[in-house]
């Protein structure tokens, strides 16, 4: 596989990973934290509901997990496609 093709395949996979990560990103913040909060109102968490928890804490924890997942996954992908720095 030429460098150019490798780069193309690498980029396609990267964009797919980004899209899925952004779906989760939007789901926990705009979804659970705001728009879908009424649907989660039945699930009680410490004096309030799950939507409130996602808006104030849950979304932040998921954001963290997403960034570290992406860094780990991409560093692996760099190696798989031979496009890493070394």
């Amino acid at each position: 596989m030429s460098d150019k093709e490798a780069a193309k395949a690498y980029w396609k996979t990267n964009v797919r990973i980004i899209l899925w990560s952004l779906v989760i990103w939007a789901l926990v913040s705009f979804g659970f934290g705001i728009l879908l909060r009424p649907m989660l109102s039945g699930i009680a968490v410490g004096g309030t509901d799950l939507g409130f928890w996602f808006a104030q804490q849950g979304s932040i924890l998921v954001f963290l997990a997403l960034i570290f997942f992406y860094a780990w996954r991409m560093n692996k992908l760099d190696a798989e496609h031979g496009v890493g720095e070394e």
Partner: protein
Amino acid sequence: MDQFTLNLLFVSASFALYIGIAIWARAGSTSEFYAAGRGVHPVTNGMATAADWMSAASFISMAGLIAFTGYDNSTFLMGWTGGYVLLALLLAPYLRKFGKFTVSEFIGDRFYSPTARMVAVICLIVASLTYVIGQMTGVGVAFGRFLEISNTAGLLIGACVVFAYAVFGGMKGVTYTQVAQYVVLIMAYTIPAIFISLQLTGNPIPALGLFGDHVASGEPLLTKLDQIVRELGFNEYTAHHGDTFNMVLFTLSLMIGTAGLPHVIMRFFTVPRVADARWSAGWALVFIALLYLTAPAVGAMARLNITELMWPNGTDAQAVSVEQIETDAKYDWMATWQKTGLLGWEDKNGDGRIQYYNDANAEMQAKAAQEGWAGNELTNFNRDILVLANPEIANLPGWVIGLVAAGGLAAALSTAAGLLLAISSAVSHDLIKGQLNPGISEKGELLSARVAMAAAIVVATYLGLNPPGFAAQTVALAFGLAAASIFPALMMGIFTKVNNKGAVAGMISGLAITLIYIFLHKGWLFIPDTNSFTDADPLLGTIKSTSFGAVGAVINFAVAFTVSKMTAPIPQEIEDLVESVRVPKGAAAAAADH
């Protein structure tokens, strides 16, 4: 030792530390001035980014806004952290691979146009300057309190300190200074929160205490808080009241603004490798999250404490008496804060008591008529004082109060320094060296950088005297401007083949329309009383001026794609540049633009 001396001691000790580090690491060459010679580890870089980015808005202002509004202001929490996901996934690794020093250099090269670079510089300066105004508001509050002087005098003194401080050293000095500042500010934020969480819930971790039980009543803390504020006619703390559409737009504006602010993005140019740029964003968010997970607990617990202080025997008994406020040591903080002009009360009905309630609520008006109340008597409670006053409100030991004063100043100073650096490098490196006088000497470039810093701080101080909102709200406007101008241009530069004309038209329309929308609501050039609309009744539906950044970004994308479609496609060498930015392979240490 009295509180004033103690505050002074903590503040000067922390300052001595930062200035010491700045002198020790004084920048030599221009390359070091901008990007610290790229020798910064991801964890160190993450910590410095966190200090740089968490400003007066996060430290001083945010918890106060959450405390008095409740759930609806969760937007700040999600918005200012969610942006890091965008940074890490969409921008940081590619900008690092590109390997130049500034955001506008990337835009200028990618869109092969000096005009694009100029427009980007203007966008950066407008957003950064607005951001500095917010910082100066916070600096005024912090200096006013710890020197026990008026807010205005505090602001003027603070401006001199920020200037003296920012002129020292470049990024290297700033990077290690900011690590020290992070340590000071995170301790200052969490230690009082731990004390208060223990007092109220028995849980030493504030983030868990927020969802725990209130020791005094045995009920969950948030249930107790909802009940007590409802009894005074205020909106329930955990319920949703505002407009949902505006809430979504505001959160989105803060998120994409975070990923478009020059002083944050610049950080990712300073890591050694592309892989490190990815990790750096994560580490930055780890250090930011330590504060952001604590902030909602600080807000809720402070609201409960304040309400209980104003109604010491419960909301159905008598309110606190003026005599008690004046004599009881528990209420000393009220007198201290009164001096700054940011807290005020007035016994309107002359009954010797201060009734704190929502006098806009119909039920409470009926009750007030019956009880002989003449309106809410806690007449002024500036949201920006809440975090700084919090340890005093909770009656914590003096050293904690001193520590918080030092932390608040660290937050405001570190961000102001980072922003001033971004502004000065935009002017000296991009505007003067890049356009007006390419042959300028290194010495001349450094000098013009410092002159630009001085000019920026004078403007920000002047506007900070009459800020367009509380610190966090002014800062939100800056995020809106960055969201509407820089973020779309960077995204399109990496992920699409949009051409030079498209990018320029997009940035100009995004920035101009957003700026006009903000000025229509906040006054032209933020000069008071020149506004035609207010955020309570905005021009377009429910979209407040603070939320408009997301709309501006959409306009930017739409204009850019349309113009790009109608004009010549990008040349082959730019096509190659885009391909090369997308893969880490071949990332070299970046070079200055010689």
